[in-house]
C-alpha cells in the first residue's frame, strides 16, 4: 500500500493545524502511521483512497475531519482554447485520454517531489502499475497546442526524459529504465501511443515516459496534465490530480478532447436515509447529525424529501454504494465512540467432524509417544517423489508460477514432510517420533492423511506394525495387511493396509483372514456367516462376514514399514527410520 510522506511544514501550512493534533487524530480517519520522524511523518493510506495520496489531499480531508471546514470543496474550472485530437488508430491500444491545464502553480523542489509521489502512488493504486492508467505532467510553456494523441511506429525517435540523445520508441522499451519496466504493457502492439504538439514535438509516450522537453522544474508555473488509460477511471484520476494542485493555489482550465471537455468536477449524487445508517452501524442519528458528519468527511449533503441527498466529491473513487457513505458517517462519528453491543443471535456451536477426527488421532498418537508436527503442505516433486524413490502419480496439484523450487506442488503424501523434519533434527537426541494428521491434495481435492515416522538405532518393522495396529484398534477399524510394493520402503519389510470397501468388481470367492491366511468361500448363509475352506491343513471354518475380506472388497488405505536406506540417505540421515501413512475417511 502506498506510504505517503507528509512534511510537517507543508502540513501545518496547508491545514493551519499543529502537527501533534494531526498525528493523534489522523489514525481515526482511516490510515496507519508507519513512522514519525523529526521533519515528517510517513502514513499508509488505504488503496481505495487515492485522493489521500498527497499532502494537499490529506489536508483537505483533515480540515474537515478536525472541524476546521465542512462540506463539499468547490473548484472552479475555466475553459481554455487548448485542444487534443485523438486519432482512431489509438483506440485499440490505449483508447482513453483526459487532460487539463493548471496555471499559476508555484513549485518548490519539495512540492515537485510530492507531485511525483502522488503520480507514483496513483499508478500503483488506480493505475494497475500504469497499465490501466498513466499520468503525465508537463511544463505547458515548452509546447504549443493543439496536441495530437496518435498511434506511432516504433521506429519514431525523440529525446526521452532523463536522456540527452534521441532514441526510437522501441529502443526506449529496450534500454530506458522506465521502458524496460513497463514494456509489458505494449508487448502486444505494433504501434505505440504518442502525444505530439502543434510542431510535432513530443509531449509524451504514454504509459512509458515523457519527453525531456516538458520536464517540470521550479520555474514551471503552468502545467498540462494528460492521463491515458483503458477505461473511465482516467477521469477520477485527473480530478484527484487537478484538485490537489488547486489546493496549492493552481487555477484549473479545461482541455477539449475530440469535442469533449475535461475535467468534469461535477459531484456525484446519492440518496441516503437515516434508517440505513441505523441498520448498518446501529447508531440512531437525526438527519441533521448525518448531514453534519457527512460535511466533516467533505461531502455535500442536504435534506431532500424524506431523506438526504449527498453530493460526492469528484475526486472520491471509492463511493460505489450508500454503505460507503455510511462508513464515512461512522468514521466521522468516531469508531471509538460507538458503543459495542452483543447481538441477540443465539446458536449452538458444533465442531467439524474432520477436526474431531484429527483431535482423536492426535490423542492416540501422542499416547503412543509421537510428537505432533505441522509441516508446510507446499512441497516439490523432488521431495515428494525423487528423494522417496517413488514414481510420479497422476493428480499432482502443480503451481503455475512457483516462488521457490521447494514449493512447486501441493503435497499428495505426508511421509516426505515428516522425513524432512527428521532430517532437520538429525543432530538431536534419538529416538525421535513424530506424526501429522493433516491435509493432502489428490486431484485438487482435500484428503485427510495420518502419517508418522520414527528414527532410532533399533527401529524396525515390528515396532511400526504395533503402532499401526494400535491406531486401527483405537479407531475400531478391522484391517488386513498385504505384502507392500512401495519403493520408499525396503522390500519384504513393507506392508499395505487394506480395509473392507465397497465391492468394485465381480464378487470373488477368495477370502483373506487378518492372519494372512487365504481360503475360499464355499457357502454363504443368510445370517451374515460364511463357510471358508482352507487347505494345509484342510479344514472348513464357519466365520462372520466381517472376519473375512473378499478379493473384490479390498480397499487400500495405507502403507507402513522400514524406510529404504537410499531414502534415509537421501534425507541425510544415518539411522533406521520406520513409518506409516494412512488415508482417513469418515469410516476411520
Amino acid at each position, binding site marked *: 500500500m502506498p506510504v505517503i510522506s507528509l512534511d510537517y511544514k507543508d502540513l501545518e501550512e496547508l491545514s493551519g493545524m499543529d502537527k501533534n493534533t494531526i498525528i493523534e487524530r489522523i489514525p481515526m480517519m*482511516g490510515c496507519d502511521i508507519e513512522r514519525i520522524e523529526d521533519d515528517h511523518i510517513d502514513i499508509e493510506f488505504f488503496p481505495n483512497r487515492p485522493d489521500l495520496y498527497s499532502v494537499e489531499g490529506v489536508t483537505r480531508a483533515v480540515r474537515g475531519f478536525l472541524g476546521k471546514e465542512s462540506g463539499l470543496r468547490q473548484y472552479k474550472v475555466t475553459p481554455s482554447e487548448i485542444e487534443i485530437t485523438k486519432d482512431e488508430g489509438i483506440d485499440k491500444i490505449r483508447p482513453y485520454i483526459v487532460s487539463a491545464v493548471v496555471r499559476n502553480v508555484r513549485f518548490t523542489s519539495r512540492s515537485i517531489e510530492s507531485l511525483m509521489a502522488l503520480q507514483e502512488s496513483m499508478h500503483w493504486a488506480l493505475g494497475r502499475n500504469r497499465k490501466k492508467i498513466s499520468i503525465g505532467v508537463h511544463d505547458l510553456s515548452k509546447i504549443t497546442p493543439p496536441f495530437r494523441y496518435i498511434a506511432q511506429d516504433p521506429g519514431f525517435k525523440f529525446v526521452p526524459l532523463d536522456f540527452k540523445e534521441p532514441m526510437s520508441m522501441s529502443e526506449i522499451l529496450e534500454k530506458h529504465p522506465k521502458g524496460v519496466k513497463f514494456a509489458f504493457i505494449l508487448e502486444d502492439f505494433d504501434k505505440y501511443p504518442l502525444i505530439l504538439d502543434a510542431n510535432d514535438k513530443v509531449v509524451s509516450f504514454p504509459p512509458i515516459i515523457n519527453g525531456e522537453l516538458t520536464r517540470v522544474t521550479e520555474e514551471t508555473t503552468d502545467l498540462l496534465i494528460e492521463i491515458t488509460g483503458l477505461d473511465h477511471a482516467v477521469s477520477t484520476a485527473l480530478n484527484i490530480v487537478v484538485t490537489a494542485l488547486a489546493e496549492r493555489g493552481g487555477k484549473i482550465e479545461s482541455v477539449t478532447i475530440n469535442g469533449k471537455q475535461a475535467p468534469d468536477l461535477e459531484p456525484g449524487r446519492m440518496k441516503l436515509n437515516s434508517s440505513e445508517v441505523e*441498520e*448498518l452501524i446501529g447508531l440512531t442519528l437525526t438527519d441533521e447529525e448525518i448531514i453534519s458528519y457527512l460535511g466533516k468527511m467533505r461531502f455535500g449533503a442536504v435534506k431532500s424529501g424524506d431523506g438526504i441527498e449527498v453530493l460526492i466529491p469528484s475526486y472520491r473513487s471509492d463511493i460505489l*454504494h450508500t454503505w460507503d457513505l455510511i462508513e464515512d458517517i*461512522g468514521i466521522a462519528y468516531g469508531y471509538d465512540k460507538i458503543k459495542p453491543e452483543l447481538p441477540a443471535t443465539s*446458536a449452538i456451536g*458444533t465442531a467439524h467432524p474432520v477436526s474431531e477426527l484429527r483431535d482423536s488421532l492426535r490423542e492416540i498418537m501422542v499416547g503412543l509417544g509421537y*510428537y505432533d*508436527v505441522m509441516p508446510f503442505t507446499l512441497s516439490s516433486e523432488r521431495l515428494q517423489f525423487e528423494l522417496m524413490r517413488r514414481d510420479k502419480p497422476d493428480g499432482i496439484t502443480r503451481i503455475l508460477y512457483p516462488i521457490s523450487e521447494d514449493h512447486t506442488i501441493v503435497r499428495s503424501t505426508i511421509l516426505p514432510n515428516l522425513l524432512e523434519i527428521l532430517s532437520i533434527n538429525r543432530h538431536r537426541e534419538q529416538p525421535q517420533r513424530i506424526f501429522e494428521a493433516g491435509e493432502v491434495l489428490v486431484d485438487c481435492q482435500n484428503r485427510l492423511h495420518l502419517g508418522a515416522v520414527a528414527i532410532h538405532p533399533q527401529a524396525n518393522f515390528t515396532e511400526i506394525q504395533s503402532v499401526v495396529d494400535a491406531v486401527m484398534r483405537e479407531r475400531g477399524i478391522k484391517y488386513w495387511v498385504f505384502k507392500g510394493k512401495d519403493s520408499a520402503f525396503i522390500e519384504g519389510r513393507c506392508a499395505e493396509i487394506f480395509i473392507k470397501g465397497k465391492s468394485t468388481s465381480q464378487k470373488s470367492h477368495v477370502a483373506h483372514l487378518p492372519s494372512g491366511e487365504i481360503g475360499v468361500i464355499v457357502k454363504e448363509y443368510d445370517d451374515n456367516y460364511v463357510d471358508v475352506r482352507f487347505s494345509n491343513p484342510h479344514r472348513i471354518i464357519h466365520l462372520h462376514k466381517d472376519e473375512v475380506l473378499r478379493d473384490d472388497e479390498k480397499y487400500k488405505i495405507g502403507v507402513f514399514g522400514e524406510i529404504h536406506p537410499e531414502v534415509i540417505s537421501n534425507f541425510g540421515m544415518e539411522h533406521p527410520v520406520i513409518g506409516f501413512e494412512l488415508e482417513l475417511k469418515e469410516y476411520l
Partner: protein
Amino acid sequence: MSELNLTINEKRVLQAIAKKDKIPPEELAQTSGLKIEAAMQSAFLLAEKKLSKISEEISDYYELTSEGEKYAKEGLPERQIMEYFEKNSKNEFDISLLKKIFYEYIEFGVSWLLKKRWAKIEKGKIISLIPKPNKGEDEKFIEELNKNKRIYWINVSDRDRGVVYTLEKRNLIEKFTEKKRTVSITDRGIELVNKGITIKKEIAQLTPTIIKNWKNYSPGDYRPYNIHTPVKPVYGAKIHPYQRLINDMRRIFLDMGFTEIKGDIVQSSFWNFDALFQPQDHPAREMQDTFHLDTTCDLPGQYVATVKNMHETGGDIGSTGWGGIWSEEVARKQVLRTHTTAVTIKYLAENPDPPVKAFCIDRAYRREAIDPTHTPEFEQLEGVVMDRGVSFKNLLALLTEFYHRMGFEEVRFRPGYFPYTEPSVEPEVYIESMGRWVELGGAGVFRKEVTSPLGIKYPVLAWGLGVSRVAMLRLGLKDLRELYQSDIDWLRKSPVL
C-alpha cells in the same frame, strides 16, 4: 552421630579407606567392591559428612618414548656394540667397519661406550675394556618401564633418580604430569569405624516378596534417595504448541456458539475473489500474489449471472459496480485459497437462512517468499454472524468478547479497509510486554455487493486474523518457520500451558 545415616556404599568405602591412606579411585573401587563411579560418589558424600578427605595430587610419571621402546627390545646402542664384540669373539674393531654395521647408532653408541668405560678408542679402533659388562641401572630402569608402561616419580628410588635424568636427556623416556585424586579417612571417620560399622543389606528396589512381608521391615531398612540429586529430564510426546493455540481458538468459537466449517484448499477464482466483489483486474489476483494452478473448474450456475451483473453494473442494490466486462473464464481459474473467506462465503451462499454463526480456522496460501515473518502458507481464523438486524456495533461487541477470551484485556478500534467489507475496522489489542497497541486482524460487515448476488439477505458480520501473529506473541517466536519446520528440542521443551 549415628552410622545409620550412611548407605551401604558409604560404609564400604569408609571401611576401605580405614585400611589404607590415600587410596586412588581404582584401588578404592577394588577394595570396596563397587564400581569406580559409585565408590567415588560415596567418597564425596562421606567428605560432605567430614568422614573422608579427597585430595588432588599432581604427580609426575615417566613413559618410554618410541625410541626408548625400541631400545628396550633391542638393547641400548652401546650394549649392541658390546654384544657384537662378543659374538665375533674380538676385542677390537675399526670404527669405519662398525659404522657400516650400526649406521647412525655408532656415534652415540661409542660415546656411551666411552662414558661407561666399557671401551676406549685408539688409532681409529675401538678396543673393548670389559668383555661382558653387567647390566647398568639405566638398562634395568628401561626394562622395568617397558614392563610397567608407566613409573611414577614418587616411586623412583633415590638411587635411580640420576638414571631417570640421564634417560630423559637421552630422549628415551618422557615425563608426564597427571592430577590424581586420592581418598583418605579423617579422624572423625576413624572414630566412627572404631565404634564398629555393621553392613546390613538395605532395600533398594522393592520386590513382590518385600511387599508381601512389609511388616518385617522398619523405615531404616529402605535406602533413602538423595532428593536433591539433579534430575535427568524426560520429555513426553505432546500436541504441537501451535496446534494447542489453534485448539484454544476453536474452543472460544465453540463456546460462543459458532459452528466450525471447512472447505477445499483449491478454490475457483470465483469463490476466492469474484464472489467477494474483488474486481477481476485487482492486483491481488495476479500471479505475483496468488498461487495459480493450470486447471479450471465449473462455476456455480445459479450465481454466475447475478455476480456478473454486480461486477459490471452494480446489480439492483443501487451500487455502481466496477464497470467493464466480467469474464467467466477468469472466474473459472483455480487458485490455492488466499484466505479462508472463500470457504466462509460459499458456506453462507449455501446456508442463506438466518441465523448463521460459523467459523473457520485453516491454511491459506499467498505467493510470498519465506522469511522470519512471512510464510507462503499460514493459518487464518475467521468468524461470521449472519442474522436479521445485526449491525456494526454488534460486530464491535463480538470482537471485544472474542479478544477478551483470547486473553487480550484491552481492545480498541480504528477504521480499516478490506475490499469486501463496509464498514471495515482494524482491531488493536494492548500488549503489556511490548508496552504498545498491536493491530490484530480485521473485521467488517460484508458489502451488499458481496451478499446480494448470492441470495444472502441479512447483514453478515465478519472478522479474521492471522493465527501465526498470535502465535508469535504467545509463544515468543522470532521466526515463523519454527512452527512448520520444528526443532524437535523446541517441541520437547515447550511447556504445555
